[in-house]
């Protein structure tokens, strides 16, 4: 069961924004900086963080929309970063993505059936005669009907379009699906439908998810393990029960306390962070969170804390826990 499907080691993606006259970069945006974690086969790994923390960039690296600046990605034991473009493409089939915006991620000029059939045809997965049958099967899997096959995306509501996006991702029988905020553009009642659908499909097809979201309650619902990102760094990883019951990193604590509770009788004590997320361009040398941290130590501004295991399977990058392991 605990077979590692995807293992990322020191993964980084830097965008050079400006260069001087010698071509040396002067402004570098470190979107993902030295991130390492692994995803076990069959699990749902949740990745949370606020806008600009690099979670979407990370997802795009995995599906080969960006190539990493440095670091390694092992998929089923194979290092994907050393492959050439053609060899890398062969793995695209195994790692698919569901996008955030169901309005922008479907081609408005194609019928939904053609949208779902396209990846099957491109990857030559089935003889032409069987493609249609498979499309109808996939439509049924995501709760759409056969007669909707020839309709265009604009005829569908947001939730239905997201179902089409899911069917397209499933079409090539992927092993890992990167779900990038799949429900954040949807209404609450539709959100629940899509989350339940993702749950069912995971059980039915034995899928592994990397579930990227900013809503901590949604991530808690779907994930087995959760990683918290802040400004390109992974600050905490733990099994979900452990993370939500016992958050260690001050940022995770603040993030959890910021979520409104659906119970007006229960007023909880709230940590309100000061200020905004600093710019990811040329970020500070020490801990990235130190400018907003309410438990800052002296060393936080000087050197960046490393991710370390402070309890079984609970990893945190914070100087507060430096002494635990030593």
């Amino acid at each position, binding site marked *: 069961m605990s077979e590692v499907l995807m293992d990322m080691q020191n993964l980084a993606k830097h965008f050079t924004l400006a260069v001087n006259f010698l071509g040396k970069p002067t402004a570098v945006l470190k979107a993902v900086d030295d991130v390492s974690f692994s995803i076990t086969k069959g699990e749902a790994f949740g990745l949370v963080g606020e806008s600009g923390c690099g979670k979407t960039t990370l997802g795009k690296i995995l599906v080969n929309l960006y190539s990493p600046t440095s670091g390694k990605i092992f998929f089923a034991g194979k290092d994907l970063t050393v492959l050439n473009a053609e060899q890398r493409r062969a793995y695209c089939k195994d790692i698919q993505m569901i996008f955030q915006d169901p309005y922008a991620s479907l081609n408005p000029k194609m019928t939904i059936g053609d949208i779902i059939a396209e990846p099957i045809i491109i990857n030559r997965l089935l003889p032409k005669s069987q493609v249609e049958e498979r499309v109808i099967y996939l439509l049924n899997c995501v709760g759409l009907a056969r007669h909707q096959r020839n309709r265009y995306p604009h005829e569908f509501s947001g939730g239905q379009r997201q179902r089409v996006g899911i069917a397209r991702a499933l079409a090539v029988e992927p092993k890992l699906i990167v779900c990038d905020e799949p429900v954040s553009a949807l209404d609450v009642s539709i959100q629940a439908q899509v989350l339940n659908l993702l749950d069912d499909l995971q059980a039915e097809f034995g899928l592994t998810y990397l579930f990227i979201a900013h809503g901590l*309650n949604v991530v808690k619902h779907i994930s087995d393990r959760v990683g918290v990102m802040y400004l390109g760094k992974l600050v905490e990883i733990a099994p979900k029960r452990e993370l939500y019951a016992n958050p260690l990193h001050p940022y995770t604590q603040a993030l959890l306390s910021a*979520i409104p509770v659906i119970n007006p009788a229960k007023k909880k004590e709230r940590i309100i962070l000061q200020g905004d997320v600093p710019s990811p361009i040329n970020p500070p040398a020490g801990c990235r969170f130190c400018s907003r941290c309410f438990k800052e130590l002296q060393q936080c501004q000087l050197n960046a804390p490393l991710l370390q295991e402070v309890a079984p399977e609970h990893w945190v990058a914070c100087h507060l826990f430096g002494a635990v392991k030593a």
Partner: protein
Amino acid sequence: MLLEVKGLSTEFKLKRGIVKAVDNISFTIDKGEILAIVGESGSGKSVTSLSIMGLLQKPGRIAGGEILFKTQDLNKLSQKELQKIRGNKISMIFQEPMTSLNPVWRIKTQIMESIRTHLQVSQHEALERTIAMLDTVGIPSAAQRANDYPHQMSGGMRQRVMTAMALACEPELLIADEPTTALDVTIQAQILELLYRMREKFHMAVLLITHDLGVVSEAADRVIVMYCGKIMEEADVRTLFSTPLHPYTVGLLQSIPQLDADSDERLYMIKGMVPNPLNMPPGCPFSDRCDHSMQRCSQEMPQLQDIAGHKVRCFLYEGGVRVK
């Protein structure tokens, strides 16, 4: 009573028919109260706020009803008279802090404009007031940041600037249309706290429009749940969350993944989707998605019942008691 909306209907005349975005709704807001209107997309909550502000764009129009601010009917005022109230006695903050500020003007100019329009003050006094206001809403080194252009600020900062602009003339009613939807949770917490603080400080009433029940539960005193342009339920916040009556409200509350719940259970789903506004069923608009739907639900429209201050529009509660 500060604002009283009586039987307000707003419709949009389209080629394919008339969409009743807001259908005969009535509610009141008292001084210093935070009233939340919650609903999903298309429920008519934003159109309600635009109707109150007189900001409806064609083809939308108010088809009936009264909007009484103190004793004046806002709907009967001319644009010129409305402008004296808008931004002064009633002001609004919008959902998109990115697009609702003018990108080519410094923020101080934009805030001073609103002050100088409504109050007889000198340029100098207006600037002082602007800086004091920016300081109140928590912009660090306000005197310098006042010279910034909107693009130099983050989303949370811009929402603070919007709030400062709205509060500059110390309005009696603030309409906040999804003020935190575009923001991250940690910034959302900051802005909600700010609204709360401002309410205490200026004793203003707030009409909070949102789709997020979490935000409602944190901020509001009283809640109206809207669906397809109609009020389905209205109660004070504690009552609504502890004993929701309408099946739609119950479904909404159950379908949100909760942080303290055991998360391995399946989420409750409201089946189906919102009906097409051009083709509304004759009865209760929620009838085809409802678990408790009876035969008459799809034929006649239930009335809004008042059960000891808790209003609900559902046949299950006819005569003030739950029918089994």
